[in-house]
């Protein structure tokens, strides 16, 4: 459920398919630049009703890393 929500946010934010989303790293595509990054964070915060720390926003540099951060620091189970 959460995994699906998480994936959908990536797909919608960056307009990419599932396979691309899952391997995505920050600045791999033009859509995931610093503007896209803040929109992604806002979407994640709204969806999971969390408030992320600045350090986590900076460390959030790939699809996989983001999952790790959400699981470890915000108790979101995937």
């Amino acid at each position, binding site marked *: 459920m959460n995994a699906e929500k998480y994936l959908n946010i990536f797909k919608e934010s960056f307009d990419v398919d599932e396979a691309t989303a899952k391997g995505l790293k920050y*600045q791999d595509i033009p859509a995931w630049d610093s503007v896209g990054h*803040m929109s992604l964070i806002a979407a994640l*915060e709204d969806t999971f009703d969390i408030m992320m720390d*600045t350090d986590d926003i*900076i460390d959030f540099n790939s699809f996989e890393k983001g999952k790790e951060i959400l699981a470890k620091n915000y108790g979101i189970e995937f």
Partner: protein
Amino acid sequence: MTFEELLQVPPYSLGHEEKHALLTERLLELTEHHRDRCPEYRRMLKSVGYDAGSVSGYEDLPFLPVRLFKELSLRSVPQEDVVKTMTSSGTTGQAVSRIYLDRTTSANQQKAMVKIVSDFLGASRLPMIVLDCPSVVKDRNMFSARGAGILGFSIFGARKIYALDDDMHLDREALTAFLEKFQGQDILLFGFTFMVWQHFYKELVRLKEQGVTFDLSRGILIHGGGWKKLASEAVSPQEFHDRLRDVCGIDRVHDYYGMVEQTGCIYMQCECGHLHASVFSDVIMRRPLDFGVCGVGEPGIIQVVSAIPESYPGHSLLTEDEGVLLGEDDCPCGRKGKYFKINGRLKNAEIRGCSDTYAAKFA
């Protein structure tokens, strides 16, 4: 020394000797780095007879006039590594600076800024009102200084709204709804000094006359971008602060000094009204006649050095601003490092003379 190591140091924790040693090491390395990778920079160093062996501190390093980034495309990375190009906010008819960022430099700018601003705001993010319009961040490939500032500060905010629409009118409904939602909480406001004055403050005054008021007593305003336009309306920093407090109750107001050529290591104004240099950068006030280093209290042209730039040779720059060093390591706010104030932009004719002749040497 890597930038990662510097990031581990709390931003206002080092006294003069420690900071001087650390920054000198990093800036010497950056000078070599750019000499190896940027042919134009290499030629400039050669023409001024640069010799690393004779450098005893970063005051001895050569500096480029900021203007040079308007005239030349200076990069220390291949074009394909450039992920973002930032431009200065030149007024109409003026050339704009182009600053090329790769992933590393772009990331380090944001990291340094987080360390600096967190020292003032604390670790938690705050509901945020951007005192500008959404369209400034629309062109994603070409960032203006305004867009870069808004984006850089957005990381400290959450549930962000823009207070102005694209015609620069205050969105009263959005502001009211936002303030109701976050009643009783600290709120971050960010904007450029002139925009805040022109499109926010003046509108609040107009609305107050109609009996419509907003309570921003829990607000913390961070603003930057200079006082040039406000000085022409004869608004001093103190008056700016006082009048904003009168109209909406906001009392925590921090100006900052920074420039697109050295994004990231901004100079934040403390509770005592002083601008502070962090461990990531420093200011050196220079005498206009011989570029000698000014003493405390002596106005001079501001040179800025930054430990961040790796993708363009902008680690040591002579600005077109005049400032005064107020002291070092002993500000009553407790932060170490130099603290200073800005007097304003140098008069056009003067700087034209000095930077043009400086740049002409490298032509």
